């Protein structure tokens, strides 16, 4: 009986220490998040100063947007949610697409040219299809994907700094969300253990009184 109670006390102590550690980690990440967000706002303000007030506002948002960041959310056994940030690596994908399509165009062009020596009319059509293939490669990276381009072709460095600050904030937000979920789960477990302990002490107290 006493061993069980000692185990229970130990578990409760361990849970409390874990809880404290999690709160400390949360506090640290929060501070970093807050300072990064402020840095981002400051950079946006600097951009407004150089570009003009109306040039950096909700009016500049694109009419169509595609998300470049996704969050992988998974529910773990204890009921905690884990969040991982996934960012689309646009540039590498685009380069690959471009090279593949360029090679493809050349090959098909060559192949078709061989065929069209026999059929002269198709040559013109192929020359048109080659630039078409290239233009589709360019349009596969549409402008509305890159948010920087909403604000103009040449944007000041401060806007790019704002973007990188907010990108970091997004990654940190996913970590904080996971940590918050863990904290709530730890708290629930601690409450359950405290209740269990109280029930057990209530049961043993009447026994002691009888003795």
């Amino acid at each position, binding site marked *: 009986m006493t061993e069980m109670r000692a185990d229970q006390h130990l578990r409760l102590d361990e849970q409390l220490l874990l809880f404290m550690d999690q709160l400390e980690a949360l506090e640290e990440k929060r501070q970093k998040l807050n300072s990064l967000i402020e840095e981002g706002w400051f950079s946006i303000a600097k951009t407004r100063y150089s570009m003009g007030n109306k040039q950096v506002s909700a009016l500049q948002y694109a009419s169509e*947007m595609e998300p470049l960041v*996704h969050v992988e959310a998974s529910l773990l056994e204890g009921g905690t949610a884990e969040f991982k940030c996934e960012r689309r690596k646009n540039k590498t994908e685009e380069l690959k697409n471009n090279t593949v399509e360029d090679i493809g165009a050349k090959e098909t062009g060559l192949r078709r040219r061989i065929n069209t020596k026999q059929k002269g009319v198709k040559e013109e059509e192929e020359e048109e299809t080659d630039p078409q293939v290239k233009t589709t490669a360019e349009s596969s990276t549409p402008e509305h994907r890159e948010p920087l381009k909403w604000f103009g072709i040449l944007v000041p460095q401060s806007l790019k700094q704002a973007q990188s600050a907010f990108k970091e904030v997004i990654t940190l937000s996913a970590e904080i969300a996971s940590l918050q979920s863990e*904290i709530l789960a730890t*708290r629930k477990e601690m409450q359950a253990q405290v209740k269990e302990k109280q029930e057990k002490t209530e049961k043993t107290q009447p026994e002691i009184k009888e003795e």
Partner: protein
Amino acid sequence: MTGRGKLIAVIGDEDTCTGFLLGGIGELNKNRKPNFLVVEKDTSITEIEETFKSFLARSDIGIILINQFIAEMIRHAIDAHMQSIPAVLEIPSKEHPYDASKDSILRRAKGMFSAEDFR
């Protein structure tokens, strides 16, 4: 249970939304409703609450970022949300710095200690 490729929603003032949209979280097209709401001076609390509830109801949103001063306006709706997904994260705004004592999550975590004091 896994959910891949969920979105991050944001309910905030203009600068907050601009910043996060620059970061690449925005989705806006004809088929689906946007995953962000720019809150201005004339935005009603009903609209904010409805948007928040609609984000909660969507299965493709993993995290909701909300300025803390806006969260204060719809505190009852945020406190009522007990599920792990989507997670609600309160962030500061330019005029209202982050206050840990107002955060729903931390208030729930703090509540535990008051129960222990009765021992």
